[in-house]
């Protein structure tokens, strides 16, 4: 059983996501603070979609709703036609902070999902595989405090990939990294996405990052977030920062965000 499961690579097609009229609000000192305003979005299996918006607009909240960490106040979210009931390992989040457990080695951090579901014994190879995919094989026994910011985020990525997600939720995963590490990891995430075939939903406030990585960019307004526009990025991978078409798209998106004058 186990051998057979390992032999057949799980080239799971990504998830189709339907967000229908979702609104959400926070309670702030007894007052309702609206964060999402009737968001509707449909993604195809295997698509890489970026949610782009100003800081604090509510895009991370939308991601938490899709992850099932919170339930929306209004509207429905369907994954492959079924409503979301709660968190599920098929929809794993990579957060802005790596949030590795400091008391676990890199290997044990990556094995977290398997351990939580009690399958770590039979699937040890998956952990090593995932660490290899993100280039951390040599650091399996290191503790998080011994890693650089980029390495820690790679470890968090490996921890997510071990679960073989059909929808990878990326919540500004590169937001706190230095610019050089960022550039490398943008390319790496795209490469992993192309190789594994999962769907990806990336939250970011970096226009260039969204355009470099995603096949469609959803531009959100200030809080409460509404969808301003959906910009398809009709460029083949790997993309290049100097591409004139990318510059054109960037101008268009910055215009949508009201930043055209500052370009």
């Amino acid at each position, binding site marked *: 059983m186990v051998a057979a499961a390992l032999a057949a690579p799980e080239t799971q097609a990504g998830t189709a996501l339907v967000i229908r009229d979702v609104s959400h609000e926070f309670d702030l000192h007894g007052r309702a603070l609206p964060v999402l305003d009737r968001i509707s979005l449909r993604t195809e299996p295997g698509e890489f979609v970026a949610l782009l918006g100003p800081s604090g607009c509510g895009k991370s909240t939308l991601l938490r709703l899709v*992850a*099932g*960490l919170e339930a929306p106040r209004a509207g429905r979210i369907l994954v492959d036609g079924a409503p979301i009931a709660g*968190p*599920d*390992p098929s*929809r*794993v*989040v990579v*957060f802005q*902070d790596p*949030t590795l*457990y*400091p*008391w*676990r080695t890199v290997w044990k951090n990556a094995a*977290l*999902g398997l*351990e*939580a*579901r009690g399958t770590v014994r039979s699937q040890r190879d998956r952990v090593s595989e995932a660490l290899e995919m993100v280039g951390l094989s040599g650091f399996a026994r290191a*503790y*998080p*405090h011994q890693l650089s910011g980029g390495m820690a985020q790679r470890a968090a990525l490996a*921890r997510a990939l071990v*679960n073989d997600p059909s929808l990878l939720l990326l919540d500004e995963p590169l937001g706190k990294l230095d610019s050089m590490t960022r550039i490398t990891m943008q390319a790496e995430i795209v490469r992993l996405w192309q190789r594994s075939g999962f769907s990806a939903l990336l939250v970011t406030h970096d226009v260039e990052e969204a355009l470099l990585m995603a096949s469609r960019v959803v531009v959100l307004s200030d809080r409460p977030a509404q969808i301003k526009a959906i910009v398809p990025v009709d460029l083949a991978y790997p993309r290049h920062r100097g591409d004139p078409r990318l510059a054109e798209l960037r101008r268009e998106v910055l215009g949508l965000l009201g930043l055209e004058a500052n370009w």
Partner: protein
Amino acid sequence: MFSAKQLQPAEAANQSISDEPLRPAAEPRVWTVGLLAAAAWLAAAALTDRWPDADDWERTGLLAELMAAIGVGLLLAAAAGGLFGARLTRLRRIGPWLIALAIVLAGWEVATAKLQLLPRPFFAPPQGLLEVFTDDWARLGDSVLHSLILLIGGYVIGAAAGFTTGVLIGWSSAAGYWVHPVLRLVGPLPATAWLPLAFFAFPTSGSASTFLVALATAFPVTVLTWSGVAGVNRAYYDVARTMGAGQRFLVLKVAIPAAMPSVFVGLFMGLGASFSVLVVAEMMGVKAGLGWYLQWAQGWAAYGNMYAALLVMALMCSGLITLLFRLRDRLLSWQKGLVQW
């Protein structure tokens, strides 16, 4: 790594120039501080032995012999250089302390046994303490054993109870609702205040004392475990939950390990509190243990015995704290910047 030749003392290494860069340490070959320490101890020994006591003390000879033995040992260590390797480096670090110790001991000896400057019987000379260890070691050892049994029994029960309560109220708001007010009211009460009640409520003075030690331990352990669990980064739970973790996993594999640094602070505070309760319980109730020994010694005006028991108690408490630090260093090796005990 090093050949026998390289580890040999100065002479051997000097024979060949090629050995020089490989010598492990750049420390001077003759340990000057060690020689001074040896001289101090030998001088203290001579003083103790040659200068007649003002009164009859049985163990003056033995004291002088012990001092001389330490002096000779230091002399050997100082002269033999690298022969002892790493162990000698540790000895080197305490060199100044060894000198100070010899001076203090000699001063104590002069002020008490030789000149009787300090009022007797409150101030016993060093040989008075030595006499306790040579003549009364059985009773002293028995007291240590009783103290340890009582302390460890109560401490383990208290720590376990405190830890469980702390996790429970940190995790479940229902448990917090009921336990928190009780903890707030009863927790700050010194455990010794329960003493009269405990001694008639429990069938034996031993079980009453165990309860008191456990009570003293449990309060800080509960509070710090609770605050540790309550203070766990929420994002740790989010991560585990998105990967399919259940409640059990969240408590055992996320909340508890994340709270461990705080739990250990509670364990230290609990250990300190348990020492003081132990002594009081032994003085008031149980007719055994170091607390009882102290009081018995005072009753007989045997001040030498009292100092000896205090010394033993200090060593015992310090040893237990060290043990707890070692345990923490092992379990929390993933932490940075741990305090060195």
